[in-house]
Structure formats: C-alpha cells, structure tokens
C-alpha cells in the first residue's frame, strides 16, 4: 500500500538526530505545543484518507508566523522533512506523515484578521474553517463561494493547498478563482507576501502556482479571500432518470443551451439510496440516477432558467422532474448530496472516494466502463458527480477487515483514474494528488513535464524537505510504475475511443 514510503522510489533524507531536533524546537515553542509521545501523535497519523497511516517524528503546533519561521529554520538546518496540516480533512493523503518528519499543525491559526467590505475581501488565518468565513460575512450579504462537502470542518489553508472545489464551482469557480493574496513562509524561513489586496500583482502569477501546490512549495500563514454578493434567490430542480445515460445527455443539453447553473450534480442509484437512508432528503429511490440543478439570480430568471432545464430534462427522457417545494426542501436536497460520502458508511464498512474529471460528453461511456471495472474487481461502486463540470466521485465500497480488499480497492481506484486520463480528463478534479495518486501522475504527465514540476519545487525548496513523496513523483517511481502499468492501461481501454 502507498502509505509505505519506498527508499528506492521516494525521496530519502539522512536520518536526523531526533533528540537534537526536539531540543532545538523546545527553544522556540512552549512545551504544550510540541508533541513527542506516540500516543499524542496518533491523532496526526492520517488525514481524511484514513486507510493511509504513519507516525511523524514530532508534532509542532505554532500559533504565529514567527514561530513557523523559527520551526522551519530548525528543520532546514537539520534536514528534517516537514508536512503541514490544517484540519486534516483532505482525501488524498496529502497530510500523511513522512517517516521521521516534523508534522506542522496549523489549526491554531484560527482567527479572521480583517474584513474589507468595500474591496469585498477578508484576511484570514489558514486554520479558519471554510464555512466560518461565509458565516462571518453573511450579515453583510456576502459569502465565500468554494464549498467543499467538508466545509464545516475543513480549513482555508488546506483549501488553498488543495485548490478545493465544491458543488458551486460551475458558476463561482474553485479556490484559485476566489483568493487574492497569501502570506507564506519558505522552507528557508523567509516570509513572502504574494498577490495582495489589489486584483493583480507584478511579476509571475505566484498565486496560481501556490494554489493547489499541496504543501510542497511553502507554508501558508495568511490568506486574503474574495467575497461575493449572496444571490438574491436560489431554487433547485430534481430530475429522475431510469437510465444513467439519459441523465448524462441531460447534463450536456443543459450546458449546451447556454444555461449556467449554480450547481449541477448527479447521483446514481446506489449513492442516492444511501443518501436517502442517511438524511431522508426525499429522493426517488427507484431512479437509476438523479440530477440536482440549482439556478440562482433574480426570481424571474431563476424561474425561467429552471423551466428551460425542466424541458431539457424531459426531452432527454427524465421520468420525473420537480422543483423543491420550499427552502426547507431545497436544503434537504442538498443535505442529501453533501452527506452522500458519510452515507456510504451504511452500505459498507469502508469506502474509498475517487476524484477524476472527464469531458462531459464522455460521462455515459465512463459510467458504463466504471461499472465494468467494478464487476471485474468484485467491488461495488456508487457514483456521485459534480456533473456540470465533469468531476466524478466514484465511491468504492469495501471492507478493510477482509484480507486483500483494501489493496483491491486501491487497484480499482487506480484503474478508474487511468480511465479518466484515457478519455481526455485528469486524475484529480479537486482532492489533490497527495500520496494517493502519486503513481497515476506518471500516466498523466511525461518525464519532461514531471522534471519541470520537480524544477519548480526546487526553485522554492532546493532540499526538497516540504511534503516529500507527495504530489510530484520521482522519475524512479515513474520508471518502475510505467514499466509495470502504463502499457497495461493502454490495453485495458483498447475497446474505448481515446478522445
């Protein structure tokens, strides 16, 4: 399993003297913010991808930028790898401890520092929870748009590191579109301000580079987010289909008609049944798939837009189309969708969430192929999609206590990701590569591209100490993985059109 780091295929570091590290850290951090005992470090052994576990060498919990600088300087001097962590809700093992690393917990950075209503920005510390921002600015009629399903718990620093999305990306964009400035600390302990309070900054677009960099380039200590006016009105439509292909066609028809839904989501039968049992959203449990289409804006435009969506869904063969009766039902429809992942707990002891993106027009083909792979690997797959932007979340159901099932889930997940690349998509839409998809990076990118990513990392972190073994594979790993895998991947999908 990939939570094991491999000396041949992953970066290696000379073993640092742990006592020396702890002694130096004690001089810059109070004792209660340094965790060195195994029982205390257990909480940090995994993130939201709980199947991957490992213990750090030591855990540090700084609560200001100066402390982060001091800690990083010590680690740089001793050659100790550093893994930064926010709320630990990430789904790709990005915060999985590297053996012997210093785990840098940023949860104490939890203050909203300032609000500029005229510029519609908020300056926040990285440990502030995603939803807390929208809650704080709601009295001013504003909100922070990216809304990952974990928004109650996940922190903004982690959102920036992963370029987190959510159900409203289709209209409002990802994290990268909704932040304006960062303060970061380099591995060398230098504080940099990038982006800023203005809409752009001179020089290269470091904001683009930092967003989604998965903790490989620097440690984020402050974020300036953009705030948007809350829409005047929002309404959601639910369309049920007897056939997932028809649901896929309806999605393409809605987008092709020039409609820009605030959200356009799809769930297949297994997923919607689980969600229904979990939150009683009122979903039709006999449907093969449902679409949830939300439109926001002026009351008349919302009504007119949904009327068009309704016609398009019926033309695509929907068996039932209806609007949420009231705000309460609208919220329930969404609660079902946002609760779809935890709801899987009712269907199987464990589930493994995959995150690929495909061109929308391949939706139906890919669904059929995922079904075939599911049967071939002997594990059920439930499907939850951000259909509007082609972002799939197949959920592989398994039982970790059954011998070999976790490994089979991992193999099936990898096959689904390679399918996404094969049809012209990507291995990750919003969860990040982390540790989980490190091998599939070799499928999506060429050696020269991987080399360029490594060179970008080296420009920021020459010793490679920040989050090693994540996001960007070594060429050795790609050589090994490529030799045993890529050709098989080609063969595996020979019956599909490439693009």
């Amino acid at each position: 399993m990939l939570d094991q780091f491999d000396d041949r295929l992953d970066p290696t570091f000379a073993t640092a003297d742990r006592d020396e590290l702890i002694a130096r850290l004690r001089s810059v951090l109070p004792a209660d913010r340094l965790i060195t005992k195994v029982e205390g470090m257990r909480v940090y052994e995994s993130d939201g991808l709980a199947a991957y576990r490992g213990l750090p060498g030591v855990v540090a919990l700084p609560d200001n930028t100066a402390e982060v600088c001091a800690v990083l300087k010590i680690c740089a001097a001793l050659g100790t790898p550093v893994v930064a962590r926010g709320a630990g809700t990430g789904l790709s093992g990005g915060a999985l401890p590297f053996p012997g690393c210093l785990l840098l917990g940023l949860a104490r950075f939890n203050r909203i520092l300032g609000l500029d209503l005229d510029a519609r920005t908020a300056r926040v510390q990285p440990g502030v929870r995603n939803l807390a921002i929208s809650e704080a600015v709601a009295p001013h009629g504003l909100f922070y748009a990216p809304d990952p399903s974990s928004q109650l718990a996940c922190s903004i620093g982690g959102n920036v590191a992963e370029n987190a999305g959510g159900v409203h990306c289709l209209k409002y964009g990802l994290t990268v579109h909704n932040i304006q400035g960062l303060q970061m600390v380099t591995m060398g302990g230098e504080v940099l301000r990038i982006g800023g309070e203005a809409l752009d900054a001179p020089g290269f677009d470091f904001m683009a580079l930092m967003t989604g960099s998965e903790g490989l380039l620097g440690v984020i200590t402050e974020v300036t987010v953009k705030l948007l006016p809350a829409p005047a009105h929002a309404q959601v439509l639910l369309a049920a289909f007897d056939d997932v292909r028809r649901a896929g066609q309806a999605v393409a028809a809605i987008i092709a008609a020039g409609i820009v839904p605030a959200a356009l989501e799809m769930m297949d039968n297994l997923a919607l049944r689980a969600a229904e049992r979990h939150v009683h959203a009122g979903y039709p449990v006999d449907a093969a798939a449902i679409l949830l289409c939300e439109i926001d804006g002026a009351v008349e435009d919302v009504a007119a837009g949904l009327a068009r969506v309704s016609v398009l869904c019926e033309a695509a063969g929907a068996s039932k189309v209806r609007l949420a009766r009231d705000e309460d039902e609208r919220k329930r429809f969404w609660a079902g969708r946002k609760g779809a992942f935890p709801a899987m707990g009712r269907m199987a002891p464990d589930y493994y969430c995959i995150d690929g993106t495909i061109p929308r027009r391949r939706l139906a083909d890919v669904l059929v192929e995922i079904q075939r792979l599911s049967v071939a690997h002997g594990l059920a797959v439930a499907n939850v999609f951000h259909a509007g932007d082609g972002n799939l979340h197949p959920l592989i159901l398994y039982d970790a206590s059954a011998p070999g099932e976790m490994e089979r889930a991992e193999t099936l997940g990898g096959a689904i990701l390679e399918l996404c690349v094969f049809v012209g998509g990507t291995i990750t839409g919003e969860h990040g590569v982390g540790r989980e998809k490190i091998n599939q990076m070799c499928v999506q990118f060429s050696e020269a591209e991987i080399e360029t990513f490594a060179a970008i990392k080296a420009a920021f972190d020459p010793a490679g100490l920040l989050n090693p073994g994540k996001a960007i594979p070594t060429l050795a790993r790609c050589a090994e993985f490529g030799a045993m895998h890529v050709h098989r991947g080609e063969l595996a999908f020979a019956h599909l059109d490439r693009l």
Partner: protein
Amino acid sequence: MPTSTGSSDADLGDQLAGRVRAASAEQAALRIVGGDSKAWYGRQTGGEVLDISGHRGVVAYEPSELVITARAGTPVIEIEALLARHGQTLAFEPPVFAAVSTIGGAVAAGLAGPARPFAGAVRDFVLGVRVLDGRGRSLRFGGTVFKNVAGFDAFRLMAGAMGCLGVLLEASLRVTPAPVALIALTFEVDWPAARSRLAPLMRRPLPVTGACHDGQRLHLRLCGPEAGVKLAARDLGGEEERPAFWDGVRHMTHGLLAAPRLWRLSVPQSAEIAHLDGRWFWDWGGAQAWLVTDEPAERVRALAAGAGGHATLFRGAEPGEAVFTPLAAPLLALHRRLKHAFDPQGVLNPGRMYEGL
C-alpha cells in the same frame, strides 16, 4: 466538432521547437512574436524574432464542453467570431490592438478587459497549455477540463508571464455563454461621488459586468439573463447609452486610454489614492486606474504602493526605463529561480518583464 478550416491553418510545433533548441544550444536570445501588436508593452528585448503567427488554427472546439483549444498564432478575432456563431464568448475580454493580434499574445500578456472584477482574470480561463520550454521541449500542462488539480498550475502561470517561461504553442480556454441581455448606463457624477456609490452597489447581487469613470461620467454595464438586467437597470436609474462605449474601454481606443504615455495602477477598490496631477480613467469599479501624467515615475509608483497596489508604465516607456513595479529582493530571487527552472539558458524573451529575467 466545428473547427476553423482556414487554408492558412498550420502546425509549426516541430519547426518552432527546433528553433528554440538551436537558440538554447547557442545561448542566443529569442524575441517571441505573434501579431506583434503589443511590442510596446513590457521592456524592450533584443534577440532573433521567433514568429509564431504561422502556427495557427483551432484544434478543438466543442460548445457543450465550454472549451476551445487553439494554436497560439490564431488571431483573437477569428476565435471570437467562431465562438459568437455558437453563442459563446471569451469572458476575460482581452484588448485587441490589431486584427493580427493572436490568442498566444493575449494569454502571454495577461491583460483582461472591463469585466475583470466580475468575471475573472485571463489565467482564470486558461485550462491548459502546450508550451516549448527554454530547451525546446514540448510540454503540456493542465488540460481541457475545468476542474483539474494534478501537478502545479504551470498553465495558469503562463498567463501574464510575457513569454519569459515558455513559448505558447496551444491554449485551451474556458468559454462562457454570451449574455442574453446587455444594457449600458451612464451617470453624470464626479469620481469621488461615483466611488462612494460603487462600493455598496458591488456588494449587491446585481448583474454588473463593467463599472468605470472616464473623468466626467460613471458608466455601468449590465449583462446577464433578461429579467435581472432589466430589474437592475430600473433600480439603478441613469441614462441608457450605446453598449459600444464598452468596446472602446476594452480595446483601449477610448479617449486617454490611447495616450502615448500611459500608466496603469492596480489598487484595492477600497484604497484612498492621494492626489496626483494628471488625467484619470477609473475602471474595474475603482480597482484599476489609467493615468496620463507628467509626474516622475517614482511618484506614481509610490502613490500606488501607498494605496496597497502597484503601477505599470503600460505604454510609452523610454528604452531602459522600468515598466513593471520592481520586485522585493526575495521575490525577485524566486522569480529568477523559477525562470531558470523553465528556461535555464535564459533564451526566452529575456528582460521583457524585468532585467535579468
């Protein structure tokens, strides 16, 4: 799949790669040129011309996927005409200074039009690129799908990098449905009054996609679904004007935007700007100012920095005069290392942004 069928479409990728490889071997600078319609933008750079204008044509366009992929030498106006036939647009509204202006140049310059605060920057619409790095290797970053977080966002990095990090060969751009309704309004108010009116207005969910002040009047542009636009227009009042006014803002032909020596100030919308003699044109709801002034460059830059922003000598820099705001030493060092990662021999548009970069 509709693609352009222009007889001049050609894939010169291999030929251009050969040129870059040769330049790299000889450590000879290249000046990357598309339509060469923005030659005045940025610092002057020497070197042999690498003309990408022949590398042109739409590679893929699927309206229902909301993405178009075109070779870098494809003229912007051809792409916009194709999109218009399918009811779609480039929401970042790049200024087009000549009919030959290319999409590669538009991405490399990273200039966005009046919709910038409402729709987003050029890089927000770049989904993927194919570039030649400084060794002439053809690299693909990003892709054609909107949600894609695999690898560093090297594709967004190319927007506004002025060709210093790579020769753009192809760009995949997110396109948007053209708005159904469009109303342009104008108000007889001075800038301070307009400014205090704009801030609360921009906190409301109105279909505003343009807010500028030309020195005399405030201009607002409303775009979107019919009902919302009409409702907002009634609510806001003012006089209706020709929407074509906004073309002049976007393409910078309007009044002082065409001045031979022109400053661009990018500042927080909430910033108080100290007085400075000159003629001002405020756009982006107050987050971007165009300024024609005889004041020395240091004063203009200090003014922008004091307001929390930066100033660019957008047009009319003397040879050797700084164009972009100088970077702090640690940030400049990082820029140099990043440049080196993409272009170790420093052959791609060296010095176009900053000396030694």
